[in-house]
Protein backbone atom coordinates (compact mmCIF):
# COMPACT_ATOMS: atom_id res chain seq x y z
CA UNK A 1 0.00 0.00 0.00
CA UNK A 2 3.02 2.31 -0.36
CA UNK A 3 2.09 3.92 -3.64
CA UNK A 4 -1.50 4.79 -4.22
CA UNK A 5 -2.44 5.44 -7.83
CA UNK A 6 -4.19 8.64 -8.79
CA UNK A 7 -7.92 8.65 -8.86
CA UNK A 8 -9.14 7.68 -12.30
CA UNK A 9 -11.00 10.27 -14.29
CA UNK A 10 -14.69 9.94 -13.47
CA UNK A 11 -16.44 7.94 -16.14
CA UNK A 12 -19.98 9.07 -16.72
CA UNK A 13 -21.43 5.67 -17.59
CA UNK A 14 -20.04 3.64 -14.73
CA UNK A 15 -20.57 4.20 -11.03
CA UNK A 16 -17.46 5.30 -9.21
CA UNK A 17 -16.05 2.66 -6.91
CA UNK A 18 -13.80 3.67 -4.08
CA UNK A 19 -12.45 0.24 -3.33
CA UNK A 20 -10.36 -1.95 -5.53
CA UNK A 21 -11.11 -5.64 -5.39
CA UNK A 22 -7.59 -6.17 -4.10
CA UNK A 23 -8.53 -4.56 -0.79
CA UNK A 24 -10.26 -7.78 0.13
CA UNK A 25 -7.16 -9.87 -0.46
CA UNK A 26 -5.48 -9.68 2.97
CA UNK A 27 -8.63 -10.80 4.79
CA UNK A 28 -9.32 -13.48 2.19
CA UNK A 29 -5.77 -14.77 2.37
CA UNK A 30 -5.93 -14.88 6.14
CA UNK A 31 -9.23 -16.76 6.14
CA UNK A 32 -8.15 -19.14 3.38
CA UNK A 33 -4.98 -19.99 5.26
CA UNK A 34 -6.26 -20.20 8.82
CA UNK A 35 -9.95 -20.95 8.37
CA UNK A 36 -10.52 -22.87 5.14
CA UNK A 37 -7.23 -24.80 4.97
CA UNK A 38 -7.49 -26.30 8.48
CA UNK A 39 -11.04 -27.44 7.80
CA UNK A 40 -10.03 -28.98 4.48
CA UNK A 41 -7.08 -30.69 6.16
CA UNK A 42 -9.48 -31.90 8.85
CA UNK A 43 -11.66 -33.44 6.16
CA UNK A 44 -8.67 -35.21 4.64
CA UNK A 45 -7.62 -36.47 8.07
CA UNK A 46 -11.06 -37.90 8.66
CA UNK A 47 -10.66 -40.13 5.61
CA UNK A 48 -7.41 -41.62 6.79
CA UNK A 49 -8.00 -44.90 8.56
CA UNK A 50 -6.01 -46.27 11.44
CA UNK A 51 -3.90 -48.37 9.12
CA UNK A 52 -1.95 -46.32 6.64
CA UNK A 53 -2.57 -47.19 3.02
CA UNK A 54 -5.22 -49.78 3.75
CA UNK A 55 -7.46 -47.97 1.33
CA UNK A 56 -10.34 -47.92 3.80
CA UNK A 57 -11.15 -44.27 3.48
CA UNK A 58 -14.53 -44.41 5.06
CA UNK A 59 -13.63 -46.46 8.14
CA UNK A 60 -14.22 -43.59 10.54
CA UNK A 61 -17.57 -42.74 9.02
CA UNK A 62 -18.68 -46.35 8.91
CA UNK A 63 -17.82 -46.63 12.58
CA UNK A 64 -19.61 -43.37 13.34
CA UNK A 65 -22.82 -44.35 11.58
CA UNK A 66 -23.02 -48.07 12.35
CA UNK A 67 -21.52 -48.49 15.82
CA UNK A 68 -24.48 -48.56 18.20
CA UNK A 69 -22.88 -46.14 20.66
CA UNK A 70 -21.80 -43.52 18.10
CA UNK A 71 -24.96 -43.77 16.05
CA UNK A 72 -26.82 -43.19 19.31
CA UNK A 73 -24.73 -40.09 19.99
CA UNK A 74 -25.43 -38.82 16.49
CA UNK A 75 -29.16 -39.28 16.97
CA UNK A 76 -29.00 -37.70 20.41
CA UNK A 77 -27.19 -34.68 18.93
CA UNK A 78 -29.94 -34.18 16.38
CA UNK A 79 -32.65 -34.78 18.98
CA UNK A 80 -31.18 -32.22 21.38
CA UNK A 81 -30.85 -29.65 18.59
CA UNK A 82 -34.41 -30.16 17.34
CA UNK A 83 -35.88 -30.05 20.84
CA UNK A 84 -33.89 -26.97 21.90
CA UNK A 85 -34.93 -25.21 18.68
CA UNK A 86 -38.61 -25.99 19.38
CA UNK A 87 -38.31 -24.91 23.02
CA UNK A 88 -36.67 -21.62 22.00
CA UNK A 89 -39.38 -21.02 19.40
CA UNK A 90 -42.21 -21.67 21.86
CA UNK A 91 -40.60 -19.50 24.54
CA UNK A 92 -39.29 -16.84 22.18
CA UNK A 93 -42.07 -16.17 19.69
CA UNK A 94 -44.52 -14.63 22.19
CA UNK A 95 -41.71 -12.49 23.60
CA UNK A 96 -40.74 -11.27 20.13
CA UNK A 97 -44.41 -10.54 19.31
CA UNK A 98 -44.82 -8.61 22.53
CA UNK A 99 -41.67 -6.61 21.89
CA UNK A 100 -42.69 -5.55 18.41
CA UNK A 101 -46.39 -4.95 19.00
CA UNK A 102 -46.87 -3.87 22.58
CA UNK A 103 -43.62 -3.14 24.42
CA UNK A 104 -43.39 0.51 23.42
CA UNK A 105 -41.11 2.34 25.81
CA UNK A 106 -40.18 -0.97 27.47
CA UNK A 107 -38.59 -2.18 24.26
CA UNK A 108 -35.07 -0.84 24.92
CA UNK A 109 -35.14 -2.48 28.36
CA UNK A 110 -36.16 -5.82 26.84
CA UNK A 111 -33.48 -5.52 24.17
CA UNK A 112 -30.95 -4.85 26.90
CA UNK A 113 -32.11 -7.91 28.84
CA UNK A 114 -31.75 -10.01 25.68
CA UNK A 115 -28.27 -8.78 24.85
CA UNK A 116 -26.81 -8.59 28.36
CA UNK A 117 -26.71 -12.38 28.91
CA UNK A 118 -25.16 -12.85 25.47
CA UNK A 119 -22.27 -10.79 26.70
CA UNK A 120 -21.78 -12.38 30.08
CA UNK A 121 -19.60 -15.43 30.24
CA UNK A 122 -21.34 -18.67 29.38
CA UNK A 123 -19.44 -20.16 32.28
CA UNK A 124 -21.10 -17.69 34.62
CA UNK A 125 -24.57 -18.59 33.40
CA UNK A 126 -23.86 -22.30 33.67
CA UNK A 127 -22.50 -21.79 37.17
CA UNK A 128 -25.69 -19.93 38.06
CA UNK A 129 -27.82 -22.86 36.91
CA UNK A 130 -25.59 -25.24 38.86
CA UNK A 131 -26.33 -23.23 42.01
CA UNK A 132 -30.05 -23.20 41.24
CA UNK A 133 -30.23 -26.91 40.41
CA UNK A 134 -28.01 -28.10 43.28
CA UNK A 135 -29.38 -30.63 45.77
CA UNK A 136 -29.96 -27.91 48.32
CA UNK A 137 -30.41 -25.30 45.62
CA UNK A 138 -33.13 -22.79 44.95
CA UNK A 139 -35.32 -25.01 42.79
CA UNK A 140 -35.30 -28.01 45.12
CA UNK A 141 -36.06 -25.77 48.12
CA UNK A 142 -38.91 -24.17 46.22
CA UNK A 143 -40.37 -27.50 45.07
CA UNK A 144 -40.12 -28.92 48.58
CA UNK A 145 -41.73 -25.86 50.15
CA UNK A 146 -44.54 -26.13 47.66
CA UNK A 147 -45.00 -29.74 48.70
CA UNK A 148 -44.48 -31.04 45.17
CA UNK A 149 -41.58 -33.29 46.10
CA UNK A 150 -40.50 -34.82 49.39
CA UNK A 151 -36.84 -35.48 48.59
CA UNK A 152 -34.47 -33.20 46.62
CA UNK A 153 -34.15 -34.16 42.95
CA UNK A 154 -30.78 -34.88 41.39
CA UNK A 155 -31.25 -32.19 38.75
CA UNK A 156 -27.61 -31.86 37.81
CA UNK A 157 -27.45 -35.35 36.41
CA UNK A 158 -30.56 -34.92 34.38
CA UNK A 159 -31.17 -33.94 30.75
CA UNK A 160 -33.81 -31.40 31.87
CA UNK A 161 -31.14 -29.09 33.23
CA UNK A 162 -29.24 -29.31 29.94
CA UNK A 163 -32.36 -28.27 28.03
CA UNK A 164 -33.03 -25.39 30.40
CA UNK A 165 -29.41 -24.27 30.21
CA UNK A 166 -29.34 -24.40 26.41
CA UNK A 167 -32.70 -22.64 26.06
CA UNK A 168 -31.35 -19.93 28.35
CA UNK A 169 -28.28 -19.39 26.18
CA UNK A 170 -30.02 -19.62 22.80
CA UNK A 171 -33.56 -18.22 23.20
CA UNK A 172 -32.30 -14.61 22.83
CA UNK A 173 -31.01 -15.46 19.33
CA UNK A 174 -34.47 -16.73 18.40
CA UNK A 175 -36.20 -13.66 19.81
CA UNK A 176 -33.85 -11.24 18.05
CA UNK A 177 -34.22 -13.07 14.72
CA UNK A 178 -38.01 -12.92 14.91
CA UNK A 179 -38.22 -9.29 16.03
CA UNK A 180 -35.96 -8.26 13.14
CA UNK A 181 -38.47 -9.65 10.62
CA UNK A 182 -41.65 -8.83 12.51
CA UNK A 183 -40.62 -5.19 12.72
CA UNK A 184 -40.72 -4.99 8.94
CA UNK A 185 -44.06 -6.75 8.58
CA UNK A 186 -46.85 -4.58 7.21
CA UNK A 187 -49.36 -4.07 10.00
CA UNK A 188 -52.01 -2.83 7.59
CA UNK A 189 -52.44 -6.42 6.39
CA UNK A 190 -53.40 -7.47 9.90
CA UNK A 191 -55.77 -4.57 10.21
CA UNK A 192 -57.31 -5.43 6.86
CA UNK A 193 -57.90 -8.99 8.07
CA UNK A 194 -59.55 -7.69 11.23
CA UNK A 195 -61.71 -5.25 9.30
CA UNK A 196 -62.78 -8.07 7.01
CA UNK A 197 -64.02 -10.00 10.02
CA UNK A 198 -61.21 -12.40 10.96
CA UNK A 199 -60.83 -13.03 14.67
CA UNK A 200 -57.54 -12.39 16.45
CA UNK A 201 -56.43 -16.04 16.22
CA UNK A 202 -57.28 -16.34 12.58
CA UNK A 203 -55.52 -13.07 11.84
CA UNK A 204 -52.47 -14.35 13.64
CA UNK A 205 -52.41 -17.77 11.94
CA UNK A 206 -53.21 -16.59 8.42
CA UNK A 207 -51.51 -13.18 8.32
CA UNK A 208 -48.98 -12.53 11.07
CA UNK A 209 -47.41 -16.00 11.32
CA UNK A 210 -46.69 -16.29 7.56
CA UNK A 211 -45.20 -12.80 7.55
CA UNK A 212 -42.86 -13.71 10.42
CA UNK A 213 -41.87 -17.07 8.96
CA UNK A 214 -38.54 -15.78 7.64
CA UNK A 215 -37.54 -14.72 11.13
CA UNK A 216 -38.67 -18.06 12.52
CA UNK A 217 -36.60 -19.86 9.87
CA UNK A 218 -33.53 -17.71 10.47
CA UNK A 219 -33.78 -18.09 14.22
CA UNK A 220 -34.41 -21.83 14.05
CA UNK A 221 -31.45 -22.50 11.78
CA UNK A 222 -29.25 -20.37 14.03
CA UNK A 223 -30.35 -22.09 17.24
CA UNK A 224 -30.13 -25.54 15.65
CA UNK A 225 -26.59 -24.97 14.42
CA UNK A 226 -25.43 -23.36 17.66
CA UNK A 227 -26.86 -26.23 19.72
CA UNK A 228 -25.02 -28.68 17.48
CA UNK A 229 -21.73 -27.02 18.30
CA UNK A 230 -22.14 -26.50 22.03
CA UNK A 231 -20.64 -28.77 24.63
CA UNK A 232 -20.16 -26.70 27.79
CA UNK A 233 -23.76 -26.95 28.93
CA UNK A 234 -23.84 -30.70 28.37
CA UNK A 235 -20.54 -31.06 30.18
CA UNK A 236 -21.34 -28.99 33.25
CA UNK A 237 -25.10 -29.41 33.64
CA UNK A 238 -25.74 -32.86 32.18
CA UNK A 239 -23.29 -34.87 34.23
CA UNK A 240 -22.85 -37.29 31.32
CA UNK A 241 -26.56 -37.91 30.75
CA UNK A 242 -26.59 -36.06 27.44
CA UNK A 243 -23.87 -37.16 25.03
CA UNK A 244 -23.51 -35.18 21.81
CA UNK A 245 -20.92 -35.07 19.05
CA UNK A 246 -19.41 -31.77 20.18
CA UNK A 247 -19.00 -33.10 23.70
CA UNK A 248 -17.43 -36.29 22.38
CA UNK A 249 -14.95 -34.23 20.35
CA UNK A 250 -14.02 -32.40 23.53
CA UNK A 251 -13.60 -35.69 25.37
CA UNK A 252 -11.74 -37.42 22.55
CA UNK A 253 -9.29 -34.53 22.52
CA UNK A 254 -8.89 -34.74 26.28
CA UNK A 255 -8.64 -38.48 26.67
CA UNK A 256 -8.11 -40.72 23.71
CA UNK A 257 -6.50 -38.43 21.12
CA UNK A 258 -8.00 -40.43 18.26
CA UNK A 259 -7.50 -37.55 15.85
CA UNK A 260 -8.87 -39.17 12.72
CA UNK A 261 -12.09 -40.22 14.39
CA UNK A 262 -12.57 -36.86 16.10
CA UNK A 263 -12.02 -35.23 12.70
CA UNK A 264 -14.79 -37.37 11.24
CA UNK A 265 -17.15 -36.32 14.03
CA UNK A 266 -16.17 -32.71 13.51
CA UNK A 267 -16.80 -33.08 9.81
CA UNK A 268 -20.35 -34.27 10.42
CA UNK A 269 -20.97 -31.20 12.60
CA UNK A 270 -19.44 -29.05 9.89
CA UNK A 271 -21.70 -30.56 7.27
CA UNK A 272 -24.76 -29.81 9.39
CA UNK A 273 -23.56 -26.21 9.80
CA UNK A 274 -23.00 -25.88 6.04
CA UNK A 275 -26.50 -27.16 5.31
CA UNK A 276 -27.78 -24.59 7.79
CA UNK A 277 -25.79 -21.88 6.03
CA UNK A 278 -27.17 -22.80 2.62
CA UNK A 279 -30.76 -22.87 3.93
CA UNK A 280 -30.09 -19.53 5.60
CA UNK A 281 -28.87 -17.90 2.40
CA UNK A 282 -31.95 -19.25 0.58
CA UNK A 283 -34.18 -17.56 3.15
CA UNK A 284 -32.27 -14.30 2.86
CA UNK A 285 -32.11 -14.26 -0.93
CA UNK A 286 -35.84 -14.93 -1.11
CA UNK A 287 -36.39 -11.88 1.06
CA UNK A 288 -34.08 -9.78 -1.11
CA UNK A 289 -35.87 -10.96 -4.24
CA UNK A 290 -39.22 -9.70 -3.02
Amino acid at each position, binding site marked *: MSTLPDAPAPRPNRA*YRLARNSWALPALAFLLLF*FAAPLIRNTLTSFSGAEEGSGQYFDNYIRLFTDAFYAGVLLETLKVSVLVTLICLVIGYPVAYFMVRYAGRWNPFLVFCLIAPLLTSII*MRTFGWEVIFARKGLLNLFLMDAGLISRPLDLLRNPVSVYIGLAHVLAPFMVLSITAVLQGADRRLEEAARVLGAGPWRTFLNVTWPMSLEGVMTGSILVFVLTNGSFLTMLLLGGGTVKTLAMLIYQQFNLTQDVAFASAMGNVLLLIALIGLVLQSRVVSRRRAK
Partner: protein
Amino acid sequence: MSEITRTGRKRRPPRNPAKLVLGLWAGLFVVFLLLPMVVVVAVSFSSASFVSFPIPGFSLRWYARAFDYAPFMSSLLTSIELAVAATLVGTLLGIPAAIAVARSRHPVANAMSNFLLTPLSMPEIVLGFALLYFLASLRIGSGFLSLLIAHSIVAIPYISRTVMSVYRAIPASHEEAGAVLGASRFQILRQIILPQIMPGVFAGGMFSMLISFDNVSLSYFFGSAHTSTLPVVMLSYMENQFDPSIAAISTIQMLIAIVTLFAIHRAYGIQRLTSM
Protein backbone atom coordinates in the same frame (compact mmCIF):
# COMPACT_ATOMS: atom_id res chain seq x y z
CA MET B 1 -47.27 3.27 16.93
CA SER B 2 -50.27 5.50 16.59
CA GLU B 3 -51.81 4.45 13.34
CA ILE B 4 -55.19 5.93 12.73
CA THR B 5 -57.70 3.48 11.31
CA ARG B 6 -60.10 4.30 8.54
CA THR B 7 -62.76 5.25 11.02
CA GLY B 8 -60.43 7.93 12.37
CA ARG B 9 -60.40 6.41 15.83
CA LYS B 10 -57.13 5.77 17.61
CA ARG B 11 -56.47 2.04 17.94
CA ARG B 12 -55.87 1.81 21.64
CA PRO B 13 -58.41 -0.43 23.31
CA PRO B 14 -58.40 0.14 27.08
CA ARG B 15 -57.95 -3.54 28.04
CA ASN B 16 -56.21 -5.89 25.72
CA PRO B 17 -56.03 -9.44 27.12
CA ALA B 18 -53.43 -10.49 24.53
CA LYS B 19 -51.18 -7.64 25.61
CA LEU B 20 -51.57 -8.57 29.26
CA VAL B 21 -50.81 -12.27 28.77
CA LEU B 22 -47.90 -11.63 26.42
CA GLY B 23 -46.54 -8.97 28.76
CA LEU B 24 -46.62 -11.43 31.63
CA TRP B 25 -44.88 -14.02 29.47
CA ALA B 26 -42.18 -11.51 28.49
CA GLY B 27 -41.77 -10.58 32.15
CA LEU B 28 -41.28 -14.23 33.12
CA PHE B 29 -38.81 -14.57 30.26
CA VAL B 30 -36.77 -11.65 31.58
CA VAL B 31 -36.73 -13.25 35.05
CA PHE B 32 -35.61 -16.53 33.44
CA LEU B 33 -32.86 -14.70 31.55
CA LEU B 34 -31.55 -12.75 34.51
CA LEU B 35 -32.05 -15.34 37.28
CA PRO B 36 -28.78 -17.28 36.94
CA MET B 37 -26.78 -14.07 36.73
CA VAL B 38 -28.48 -12.57 39.77
CA VAL B 39 -27.78 -15.79 41.66
CA VAL B 40 -24.10 -15.72 40.70
CA VAL B 41 -23.69 -12.08 41.72
CA ALA B 42 -25.39 -12.83 45.05
CA VAL B 43 -23.22 -15.89 45.68
CA SER B 44 -20.08 -13.86 44.97
CA PHE B 45 -20.83 -11.80 48.11
CA SER B 46 -21.39 -14.87 50.26
CA SER B 47 -19.70 -15.23 53.62
CA ALA B 48 -20.06 -19.02 53.54
CA SER B 49 -17.13 -21.23 52.72
CA PHE B 50 -19.24 -23.20 50.24
CA VAL B 51 -21.69 -22.34 47.48
CA SER B 52 -25.20 -21.80 48.79
CA PHE B 53 -28.13 -19.66 47.86
CA PRO B 54 -29.69 -17.75 49.57
CA ILE B 55 -26.41 -16.64 51.12
CA PRO B 56 -26.01 -16.73 54.91
CA GLY B 57 -24.16 -13.41 55.15
CA PHE B 58 -22.32 -10.72 53.26
CA SER B 59 -18.57 -10.64 52.75
CA LEU B 60 -15.94 -9.75 50.19
CA ARG B 61 -13.70 -12.69 51.01
CA TRP B 62 -14.30 -14.39 47.65
CA TYR B 63 -13.25 -11.27 45.78
CA ALA B 64 -10.08 -11.26 47.86
CA ARG B 65 -9.58 -14.92 46.97
CA ALA B 66 -10.21 -14.25 43.27
CA PHE B 67 -7.68 -11.41 43.25
CA ASP B 68 -5.14 -13.52 45.16
CA TYR B 69 -5.47 -16.53 42.90
CA ALA B 70 -2.68 -15.86 40.40
CA PRO B 71 -4.08 -17.92 37.46
CA PHE B 72 -7.29 -15.82 37.46
CA MET B 73 -5.45 -12.54 37.31
CA SER B 74 -2.80 -13.52 34.78
CA SER B 75 -5.39 -15.11 32.50
CA LEU B 76 -7.67 -12.08 32.85
CA LEU B 77 -4.79 -9.97 31.59
CA THR B 78 -4.17 -12.42 28.74
CA SER B 79 -7.86 -12.33 27.84
CA ILE B 80 -7.94 -8.55 27.69
CA GLU B 81 -4.74 -8.35 25.62
CA LEU B 82 -6.03 -11.05 23.31
CA ALA B 83 -9.41 -9.38 22.84
CA VAL B 84 -7.76 -6.08 21.93
CA ALA B 85 -5.14 -7.66 19.65
CA ALA B 86 -7.61 -9.89 17.79
CA THR B 87 -9.93 -6.92 17.29
CA LEU B 88 -7.06 -4.87 15.87
CA VAL B 89 -6.22 -7.64 13.40
CA GLY B 90 -9.92 -7.97 12.57
CA THR B 91 -10.19 -4.22 12.00
CA LEU B 92 -7.11 -3.96 9.79
CA LEU B 93 -8.16 -6.88 7.60
CA GLY B 94 -11.93 -6.55 7.88
CA ILE B 95 -12.52 -2.89 6.99
CA PRO B 96 -10.85 -2.86 3.54
CA ALA B 97 -12.40 -6.21 2.68
CA ALA B 98 -15.86 -5.03 3.72
CA ILE B 99 -15.54 -1.83 1.66
CA ALA B 100 -14.28 -3.80 -1.33
CA VAL B 101 -17.18 -6.24 -1.48
CA ALA B 102 -20.09 -4.37 0.09
CA ARG B 103 -21.44 -2.46 -2.90
CA SER B 104 -20.51 -4.73 -5.74
CA ARG B 105 -23.26 -6.83 -7.26
CA HIS B 106 -20.78 -9.05 -9.02
CA PRO B 107 -21.28 -12.74 -8.14
CA VAL B 108 -17.63 -13.06 -7.12
CA ALA B 109 -17.97 -10.14 -4.71
CA ASN B 110 -21.14 -11.73 -3.39
CA ALA B 111 -19.37 -15.01 -2.80
CA MET B 112 -16.51 -13.18 -1.11
CA SER B 113 -18.80 -11.31 1.23
CA ASN B 114 -20.49 -14.59 2.15
CA PHE B 115 -17.11 -16.19 2.73
CA LEU B 116 -16.05 -13.31 5.01
CA LEU B 117 -19.04 -14.07 7.26
CA THR B 118 -18.80 -17.87 7.15
CA PRO B 119 -16.63 -18.29 10.28
CA LEU B 120 -19.58 -17.06 12.35
CA SER B 121 -21.68 -20.06 11.35
CA MET B 122 -19.12 -22.80 11.82
CA PRO B 123 -19.03 -24.78 15.06
CA GLU B 124 -16.10 -23.33 16.99
CA ILE B 125 -15.13 -26.59 18.59
CA VAL B 126 -14.51 -28.10 15.15
CA LEU B 127 -12.63 -25.02 13.99
CA GLY B 128 -10.46 -24.99 17.12
CA PHE B 129 -9.71 -28.68 16.84
CA ALA B 130 -8.85 -28.45 13.12
CA LEU B 131 -6.76 -25.30 13.57
CA LEU B 132 -4.76 -26.83 16.40
CA TYR B 133 -3.48 -29.68 14.22
CA PHE B 134 -3.02 -27.37 11.25
CA LEU B 135 -0.89 -24.91 13.25
CA ALA B 136 1.06 -27.77 14.76
CA SER B 137 1.96 -28.91 11.24
CA LEU B 138 3.20 -25.35 10.58
CA ARG B 139 5.23 -25.61 13.80
CA ILE B 140 3.18 -22.93 15.54
CA GLY B 141 2.57 -24.29 19.01
CA SER B 142 0.09 -23.30 21.66
CA GLY B 143 0.45 -19.85 23.07
CA PHE B 144 -0.49 -16.25 22.41
CA LEU B 145 0.19 -16.32 18.66
CA SER B 146 -2.08 -19.27 17.97
CA LEU B 147 -4.75 -17.80 20.27
CA LEU B 148 -4.48 -14.56 18.30
CA ILE B 149 -4.89 -16.36 14.97
CA ALA B 150 -7.92 -18.28 16.25
CA HIS B 151 -9.65 -15.21 17.69
CA SER B 152 -8.90 -13.10 14.60
CA ILE B 153 -10.79 -15.61 12.44
CA VAL B 154 -13.92 -14.67 14.38
CA ALA B 155 -13.06 -10.96 14.71
CA ILE B 156 -12.89 -10.43 10.92
CA PRO B 157 -16.53 -11.40 10.23
CA TYR B 158 -17.88 -9.44 13.20
CA ILE B 159 -16.20 -6.24 12.02
CA SER B 160 -16.85 -6.81 8.31
CA ARG B 161 -20.53 -7.39 9.00
CA THR B 162 -21.18 -4.10 10.77
CA VAL B 163 -18.91 -2.15 8.41
CA MET B 164 -20.70 -3.62 5.36
CA SER B 165 -24.11 -2.69 6.67
CA VAL B 166 -23.06 0.86 7.58
CA TYR B 167 -21.14 1.39 4.34
CA ARG B 168 -24.10 0.22 2.23
CA ALA B 169 -26.22 2.92 3.84
CA ILE B 170 -23.86 5.73 2.76
CA PRO B 171 -24.87 7.21 -0.61
CA ALA B 172 -22.33 6.50 -3.35
CA SER B 173 -22.61 10.16 -4.36
CA HIS B 174 -20.39 11.14 -1.43
CA GLU B 175 -17.46 9.30 -2.97
CA GLU B 176 -18.31 10.45 -6.47
CA ALA B 177 -18.39 14.06 -5.33
CA GLY B 178 -14.97 13.62 -3.77
CA ALA B 179 -13.62 12.03 -6.94
CA VAL B 180 -15.09 14.72 -9.18
CA LEU B 181 -13.51 17.38 -7.00
CA GLY B 182 -10.15 15.71 -7.48
CA ALA B 183 -9.61 13.93 -4.20
CA SER B 184 -7.34 10.92 -4.31
CA ARG B 185 -8.57 7.49 -3.35
CA PHE B 186 -6.73 7.76 -0.06
CA GLN B 187 -8.21 11.18 0.68
CA ILE B 188 -11.71 9.97 -0.05
CA LEU B 189 -11.20 6.98 2.21
CA ARG B 190 -9.70 8.96 5.06
CA GLN B 191 -11.77 12.11 4.94
CA ILE B 192 -15.15 10.97 3.63
CA ILE B 193 -15.66 7.28 4.22
CA LEU B 194 -13.79 6.44 7.41
CA PRO B 195 -15.56 9.07 9.53
CA GLN B 196 -18.91 7.79 8.31
CA ILE B 197 -18.25 4.09 8.89
CA MET B 198 -16.75 4.71 12.32
CA PRO B 199 -19.93 3.68 14.22
CA GLY B 200 -19.87 0.34 12.38
CA VAL B 201 -16.19 -0.17 13.10
CA PHE B 202 -16.75 0.69 16.73
CA ALA B 203 -19.78 -1.57 17.19
CA GLY B 204 -18.21 -4.49 15.34
CA GLY B 205 -14.98 -4.02 17.24
CA MET B 206 -16.72 -3.95 20.61
CA PHE B 207 -18.69 -7.04 19.71
CA SER B 208 -15.61 -8.90 18.59
CA MET B 209 -13.81 -7.92 21.80
CA LEU B 210 -16.67 -9.16 23.97
CA ILE B 211 -16.99 -12.40 22.01
CA SER B 212 -13.26 -13.00 22.23
CA PHE B 213 -13.32 -12.18 25.92
CA ASP B 214 -15.90 -14.90 26.59
CA ASN B 215 -14.69 -17.52 24.15
CA VAL B 216 -14.09 -21.02 25.47
CA SER B 217 -14.49 -23.36 22.49
CA LEU B 218 -11.61 -21.85 20.51
CA SER B 219 -9.34 -20.81 23.35
CA TYR B 220 -9.60 -24.21 24.97
CA PHE B 221 -7.32 -25.79 22.36
CA PHE B 222 -4.55 -23.21 22.44
CA GLY B 223 -3.90 -22.52 26.07
CA SER B 224 -0.45 -23.39 27.37
CA ALA B 225 0.89 -23.50 30.89
CA HIS B 226 1.99 -19.87 30.52
CA THR B 227 -0.78 -18.36 28.44
CA SER B 228 -4.36 -19.29 28.97
CA THR B 229 -7.50 -17.19 28.78
CA LEU B 230 -9.78 -16.50 31.72
CA PRO B 231 -12.77 -18.63 30.61
CA VAL B 232 -10.53 -21.66 30.10
CA VAL B 233 -8.92 -21.20 33.52
CA MET B 234 -12.40 -20.84 35.03
CA LEU B 235 -13.58 -24.02 33.32
CA SER B 236 -10.69 -26.09 34.62
CA TYR B 237 -11.14 -24.55 38.08
CA MET B 238 -14.83 -25.48 38.02
CA GLU B 239 -14.10 -29.06 37.02
CA ASN B 240 -12.07 -29.48 40.22
CA GLN B 241 -13.57 -27.10 42.76
CA PHE B 242 -16.96 -25.63 43.47
CA ASP B 243 -16.58 -22.48 45.54
CA PRO B 244 -17.82 -18.87 45.36
CA SER B 245 -14.55 -17.51 43.93
CA ILE B 246 -15.88 -18.54 40.50
CA ALA B 247 -18.88 -16.32 41.23
CA ALA B 248 -16.59 -13.43 42.18
CA ILE B 249 -14.41 -13.63 39.07
CA SER B 250 -17.55 -14.07 36.91
CA THR B 251 -18.99 -10.90 38.39
CA ILE B 252 -15.80 -9.00 37.64
CA GLN B 253 -15.88 -10.30 34.07
CA MET B 254 -19.54 -9.31 33.71
CA LEU B 255 -18.82 -5.79 34.94
CA ILE B 256 -16.14 -5.39 32.28
CA ALA B 257 -18.61 -6.64 29.64
CA ILE B 258 -21.41 -4.34 30.80
CA VAL B 259 -19.18 -1.28 30.75
CA THR B 260 -18.23 -2.20 27.18
CA LEU B 261 -21.88 -2.71 26.23
CA PHE B 262 -22.71 0.77 27.47
CA ALA B 263 -19.87 2.11 25.38
CA ILE B 264 -21.50 0.48 22.31
CA HIS B 265 -24.84 1.91 23.28
CA ARG B 266 -23.44 5.42 23.60
CA ALA B 267 -21.59 5.23 20.33
CA TYR B 268 -24.00 3.32 18.18
CA GLY B 269 -27.30 2.46 19.87
CA ILE B 270 -28.22 -1.06 20.90
CA GLN B 271 -31.44 -0.88 18.93
CA ARG B 272 -29.64 -0.76 15.61
CA LEU B 273 -27.63 -3.85 16.45
CA THR B 274 -30.76 -5.96 16.79
CA SER B 275 -31.94 -5.24 13.28
CA MET B 276 -28.95 -6.91 11.65
